[in-house]
């Protein structure tokens, strides 16, 4: 039994400077905390507070423009900041591993995912080809990926967001590292899968004495797994302590405001059915992917969307929940004709989206906007945020001045500083990028908004703000929303109706009340049962709300 009291990772007074003074001098400022073996340390906090930068600094993978200006990072007693690059490299993937926040772009598009996982074995262990493959397949199974044999041969672009995230997880778990840094590892996963992954992490934690640093915005996950919690804000730690201390007896106002913003279990009854006109009508939509066979392997096909029909009325919010990889993203992409469906009809505000040519559709695109699941890939790395934000409005004939006005208004709402417009996407954290994407979609004043896991990377307080915004617009202007999420509580809060998808099919649909109170389908029941943190009774922070407003709104 190893000593569980000496920390495996110990960060002392870490300071990382930002290249050009932007909103603050340092990305992280004088940070000190420990991760012990057999411990899960959850890091929560404001989006953009430096969580990812801290993890990257530990791994020695900071972008060259960011420099560690002070402090030390002790891994297993050794300061990794002073390691030879080669030594550090030998640790990585073997003794320390990291799950990246951006699963979409973190996989090499040129290699099959199987190959990429296998590589960890190849680099650090000398195993035979057969054993490598076999262990990889086992990992794929462990992270609950369906059909491991197929996925092994798939390329990243052929996988859904959640599937890619699980590939990343499998990769980092391959060699049972002593330290695992997980940067929002389950944001793209449905709750059943999430539960499985969390169990896996706990196993690693207890069986292999690993220390885990777990970054998340989801307090129910924190409640589920955390031993200790660190709360960060603006590059600094505002509070740390055991899970119980932080979750149930938060002391710092910021922590309290966060906990206050955690979505409560839904009690919303089904709204009375309003007879608004139908805005979206989808009938018998089908989409099957055929991955072309190579020279020697035969092609495979995946039915991503099977015979899906639904309609959404004006001012309604339709939630789509379901298994990761069940075709949610594919469904909405087909809906918007960003991808051509195989068959079926789509009617949006009286426009037949399924049969129009790309040119004809362009004029109608103003009415329907999407926030992509992947905030990394959907921003052009070579253009400033500003030019990307006003692009849509300008395209649809809004004057430049008016467009800028809207941009600044929305930036304020998503709590991004005005001068973000001058920066490039790579200079933002995951949550920040997501907020920018939301702003970009809303700048054109769409009639329909599709949000593909649009709030998953946001801390709960910003999340609440954004949801409120969407609800506001919906109520004021009759916005119709399609909302894809894995967070059932969020779904319960914002949606009128919910579709539950599995394997490309809609297995159940109904009002939120009905779905959450009286689920019919087994899968829906399983989903509800798998929700994390059910035992945690969220403390009521109402009495602090004044203080909170002070802190947040400064």
């Amino acid at each position, binding site marked *: 039994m190893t000593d569980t009291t000496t920390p495996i990772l110990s960060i002392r007074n870490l300071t990382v400077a930002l290249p050009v003074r932007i909103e603050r001098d340092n990305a992280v400022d004088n940070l000190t905390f420990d991760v012990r073996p057999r411990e899960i340390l959850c890091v929560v906090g404001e989006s953009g507070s430096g969580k990812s930068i801290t993890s990257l600094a530990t*791994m020695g993978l900071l972008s060259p423009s960011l420099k560690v200006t002070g402090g030390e990072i002790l891994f297993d007693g050794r300061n990794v900041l002073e390691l030879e690059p080669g030594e550090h*490299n030998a640790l*990585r993937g073997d003794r320390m591993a990291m799950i990246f926040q951006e699963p979409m772009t973190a996989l090499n598009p*040129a290699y099959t995912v199987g190959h*990429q996982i296998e*590589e*960890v074995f190849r*680099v*650090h262990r000398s195993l035979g080809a057969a054993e490598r493959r076999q262990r990889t397949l086992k990992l794929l199974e462990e992270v609950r990926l369906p059909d491991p044999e197929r996925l092994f041969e798939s390329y990243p672009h052929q996988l859904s967001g959640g599937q890619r995230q699980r590939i990343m997880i499998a990769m980092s778990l391959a060699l049972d590292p002593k330290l695992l840094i997980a940067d929002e590892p389950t944001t793209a996963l449905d709750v059943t899968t999430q539960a499985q992954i969390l169990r896996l992490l706990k196993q690693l934690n207890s069986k292999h004495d690993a220390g885990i640093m777990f970054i998340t915005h989801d307090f129910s996950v924190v409640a589920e797994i955390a031993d200790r919690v660190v709360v960060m804000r603006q590059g600094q730690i505002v509070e740390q302590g055991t899970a119980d201390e932080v979750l149930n007896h938060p002391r710092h106002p910021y922590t309290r405001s966060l906990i206050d913003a955690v979505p409560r279990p839904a009690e919303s009854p089904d709204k009375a059915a309003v007879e608004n006109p139908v805005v979206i009508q989808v009938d018998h939509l089908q989409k099957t992917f055929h991955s072309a066979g190579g020279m020697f392997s035969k092609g495979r096909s995946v039915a991503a969307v099977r015979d899906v029909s639904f309609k959404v009325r004006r001012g309604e919010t339709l939630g789509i929940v379901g298994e990761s990889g069940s075709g949610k993203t594919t469904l909405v992409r087909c809906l918007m004709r960003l991808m051509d469906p195989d068959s079926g009809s789509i009617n949006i505000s009286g426009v037949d989206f399924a049969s129009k040519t790309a040119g004809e559709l362009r004029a109608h695109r103003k009415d329907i906007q999407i926030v992509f699941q992947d905030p990394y890939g959907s921003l052009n790395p070579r253009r400033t945020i500003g030019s990307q934000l006003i692009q849509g409005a300008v395209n649809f004939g809004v004057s430049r001045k008016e467009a800028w006005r809207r941009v600044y208004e929305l930036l304020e709402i998503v709590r991004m500083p005005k001068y973000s417009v001058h920066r490039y996407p790579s200079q933002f954290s995951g949550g920040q990028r997501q907020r920018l994407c939301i702003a970009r979609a809303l700048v054109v004043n769409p009639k329909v908004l599709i949000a593909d896991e649009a709030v998953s990377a946001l801390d709960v307080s910003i999340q609440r703000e954004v949801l409120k915004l969407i609800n506001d617009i919906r109520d004021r202007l009759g916005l119709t929303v399609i909302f894809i999420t894995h967070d059932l509580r969020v779904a319960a809060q914002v949606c009128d109706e919910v579709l539950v998808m599995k394997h490309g099919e809609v297995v159940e649909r109904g009002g939120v009340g009905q779905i959450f109170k009286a689920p019919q389908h087994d899968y829906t029941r399983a989903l509800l049962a798998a929700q994390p943190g059910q035992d945690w009774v969220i403390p009521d922070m109402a009495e602090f709300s004044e203080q909170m407003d002070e802190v947040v709104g400064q």
Partner: protein
Amino acid sequence: MLAFLSKRIAVAILVALTVSMITFSMNYLTGDPAIAMAGENATEADLDAIREFYGYDRPIPVQYFSWLTNALHGDLGHSHYLNQPVTDEIMARLPATMTLGLFALIFALALSIPLGVLAAIRPNSLLDRIALTTAVVGQAMPSFWFALTMMLWFGINWQILPVSGADTWAHFVMPSIALGYYITPGVMRLTRAGMLDVLRSDYIRTARAKGVSKFSLLFKHALRNAIIPVVSLAAVQFGFMLGGSIVIETIFSINGLGYLAWESIQRADLPMMQAIVLVLSFFYIALTFLADVLNAWLDPRIRMG
């Protein structure tokens, strides 16, 4: 794949037709085959006699169609200047050019890709500057200069390599280097540019997080994504070398296709020119096809179609 292939073949046929038509008319404009055959001091009567005898006095479309009909029957014609069937001559010269092209390509790739990759690791470092200089020399130094300079040192001053001819492998050393060096700048600089882009990407960070070695990071993870435009360029360059190695073949007296093409243009040897152009377009089509297939393999997101 099959549909893709048949489309390519359709394009190929179209290219062959167009190119042969253009070549025919252009060649006719630029030179009179009769004069080339009769020699410089020929009289007008001589020329007329030749034109009539060999049918050069027929209208161009008629000549073209008669050529085309024969070509469709597999007869690419007969060079009146060389007094030989065109195909024999091309077949006789192709091997030298192919050998030269292949060696040159190997040399160029072996030099430029590692150099490009290394230059991208530390932009603006000394190594990068050395690589840049190597490339710029290749751009600014016409191939004849480079070739003759090599000849001066290795052939004349030190006498370690044969000066001209194509008999042994040693004969191919200087020409291959000269020809290969000519395409090095493009490949090297493009590799560097691509690597610089790719090295920033998230998946490179992932690979580092896995602890893969520097070598595998660069050459396996990064290069494969960076090299896609390079592959296309290299294919075209290889075509250049097959068809356009006029200078090198001339300087080292290698009887190849480039040399033959050059001579044939000058003596307005229509059938020969036609056949060479056909061979060339065949090569280019095959090469771009290969490059496309290779690229689709390198990056599975690039669909073929």
